[in-house]
Structures are given as C-alpha cells and as structure tokens.
C-alpha cells in the first residue's frame, strides 16, 4: 500500500502535476492567478471539490456504464460544486465573499473531470481519495507559484490580501516588496502565458537534468 501511495503523491505534486505536466485546467490557472492569494484560494476550493468528486466517482464506478459515464460525471461534479457554493454562502459567508467568484468556475475545470475519468473511475475509494488530495495540492502549488510570480513582478507585493482569505492570523504573509507598482503586463493575461511558459520550460529543463544525472549514476554503478 505504501509504494503506490508514495507514487500517487509524487505524481500529483510533481511528475504528473495537473498544470505543469498534464497541462489541464489552464483556464483557471491563468485567469485567476493575478495574485498569490487568489491562486491559493482557487487551488484550495478546487482541491475540496476534486477530493469529493474522486471519492464519489470511485464509489459509483461499478454502476456507471462506459457509454454514459461522461454525462454522469459532469452532472455529479456540477451538483457538487453548486452544493459547495450554497453551503459556503450560507455558513462561511466571509470566505464566500472572497472565493465566490471562483467557485462557479470549478465546474468547468477539466482537471476534475480528467481525474474522474482517468483515475477515480478505475480505482478504489482510498486511492481515489489520495489521488484527489495529491492532484489538488499539486494544482494549488502550481496556481500559487504562478500567482506569486505575477504578483511580485506586476504589483510588487507577495500574498497581498491573504488575510482576507485565511483569516487575520496570516497577515504576516503579506509582504510589500517595493512601492513602484510593477509591470502591468504581468497582471494582464499575456503575463500569465509568459509566466506559465517559463515555468514549463524550467520544469522540463530540471527534469532532463535530473534524468541525465540519474542515468549517469546508474551507468556508473552497473560498470
């Protein structure tokens, strides 16, 4: 159990990261990441939906036939998101006012349907749960990194307004780097494409480096 668990987590966070490797959910990844706090909020909300959707899909996978699985999953995910939206609005109203904009967007997040289709519908409840958490955290990580880079270059702050999202205890996260403002381009959509492009290239480069090193080590030990 522990080996696949480790793989699942590593896959979700890095090797098969939703944004950086699978290149899914690029629309929310670029649209809302104008600041680190926005990215983090969207990531966490998506993680919650992803985990529950994965578990539900894994539960009903035996009943759902191949032919209609996609509409069934879509109905399931849309229902889930709407329920989360209403529940947040009712009982966590303060948080809802910050995240409200993003919650409805989760329905069209293809990463959730992607994981339901590619993983949860073929696996048990427990692996599906772990996969949901790992993929969700990987997504959160990606969005937060993109958001932080764009925020630092575009507005000269880090995690501005994070205390609105996480509560007053996290006000220490809010850092003002400088007061010059910044390159507005980074906050606008082109900045998202640019940052994502550089991050993707960076990840490829790092992975290739690591692989050649590992190969060299393997070759050395085998000699």
């Amino acid at each position, binding site marked *: 159990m522990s080996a696949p668990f480790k793989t699942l987590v590593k896959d979700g966070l890095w090797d098969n990261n939703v944004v950086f490797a699978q290149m899914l959910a690029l629309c929310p990844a670029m649209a*809302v990441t*104008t*600041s680190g706090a*926005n990215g983090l909020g969207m990531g966490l909300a998506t993680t919650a939906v992803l985990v529950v959707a994965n578990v539900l899909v894994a539960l009903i996978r035996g*009943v*759902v*036939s191949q*032919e*209609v699985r996609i*509409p*069934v999953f879509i*109905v*399931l995910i*849309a*229902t889930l998101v*709407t*329920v989360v939206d*209403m*529940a947040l*609005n*009712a*009982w966590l*109203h303060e948080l809802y006012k910050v995240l409200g*904009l993003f919650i409805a967007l989760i329905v069209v997040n293809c990463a959730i349907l992607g994981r339901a289709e590619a993983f949860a519908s073929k696996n048990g409840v427990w692996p599906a749960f772990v996969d949901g958490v790992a993929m969700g955290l990987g997504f959160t990580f990606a969005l937060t990194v993109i958001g932080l880079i764009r925020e630092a270059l575009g*507005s000269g702050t880090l995690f501005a*307004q994070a205390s*609105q999202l996480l509560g007053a205890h996290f006000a220490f996260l809010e850092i003002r780097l400088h007061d010059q*403002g910044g390159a*507005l381009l980074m*906050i*606008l959509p082109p900045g998202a494409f640019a940052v994502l492009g550089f991050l993707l290239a960076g990840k490829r480069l790092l992975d290739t480096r690591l692989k050649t090193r590992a190969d060299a080590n393997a070759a050395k030990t085998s000699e």
Partner: protein
Amino acid sequence: MAFNKLKAHPLYQPLLLGVVTLLASAALALAARATQEAILEAEARDLRASLTQVLPVGFADNDLLADQVEVDVGAKNPLRVYRARQGDGADNSVRGVVFKVVGQGYGGEIQILMAINRDAQILGVRVLKHTETPGLGDKIEAAKSHWIAGFIDKTLATANWAVKKDGGDFDQFAGATITPRAVVKAVKEGLETFARHKTALLGEPEEKSP
C-alpha cells in the same frame, strides 16, 4: 454476471442518466432548502453592515432595514429606499436615504449601495456585488483600495462626473477603465434619480417640499 447483462441492455443508459439526474436534482433541492434561511440571514447581515458603512457614524439611529419603502422612479422596477432618521418624536424626519444602483461593468453587473443626505450630497458609496477582474477591476471594493471614498461629499454640481481619461474628476485604474467608468456612471445616475424624485424618496408630502 447478471448485472453485466443488465448493463448491456439498451434501456440501461437512459435509465441510469435519468436516475442520476433525479438524484442530483434532489440533492440540489435539499441543499437549497437547507441553506436558504442561512443565506438570507447572511445577506441581511451583509446589507445591514453595508448600510452602516455608507452612513457616517451617528448619522442615523433607526433600523434602516425596518424603515424601507419602494418608490416608483419611472424605471422597470420600483426603487427600494432605506431611510435614515435620527431621534424620535415629531422631529425624526428623514435625514438621508440609502438605495441601490446598478452599473454595467467589464464582467457584468456591479451592484452599488449609495447614501445621499437631504442636500443631495453623497454620504458614502459601497460596492455590494461585482464580477470584475480580480486584481484589476476589484479596486472598487473598499477592502482593496480607498478609491470608493472619493465620492464622499460630492454632489451633481461639485464634480465632473467621469473618469480622468474621459476628462472627469475620478481616477481610473491601471489596466481597468471600464470598471470605474461604470461605477461613476451608476453613482451619477443615482444622484440624478434623487434630484428628480427627491420628495418621493424622502417621503414628504408635495406641498411641504421647497
């Protein structure tokens, strides 16, 4: 296996879809019912908080939510007006009114709450709801910038009601002109509505009006 045979039956697909949709609708209906009251309560709490925010401290001592009327201002829907009063007895005439105006922003409707005193001077403006671009257009929120405070004390006559780019008095944001433009226009229209229907909004009989 018997179940697999059942699954292969042509009727299985539509039935499955139907059952799933039915269950989903049931879940939604239940959730809507369970959350309805709490959502209404939260929204009333929000509205009360916004009402106190647009009015200066100590301006009114009545419960504005209880003191609301609907006034026909010639629009499609009547305007819901909250009246601010102070003191009780004979002299508790309306000191100011609070009402909602709607602007068309970049991402859709912007709902704005504005308070005006008897002299048609703005007491305060707050954005209640909007779908503007996060990080660009959302500077109209009081929590994110002080821009919205620029309306205080302005009247129709004492300000040039447009953003600076259009030759007016109000700042636009870097990268977002449509949003502040929409807010300025909506607030201006609110002031014009007040000017046209002053006696009705203040709830005074016609002959008493100056």
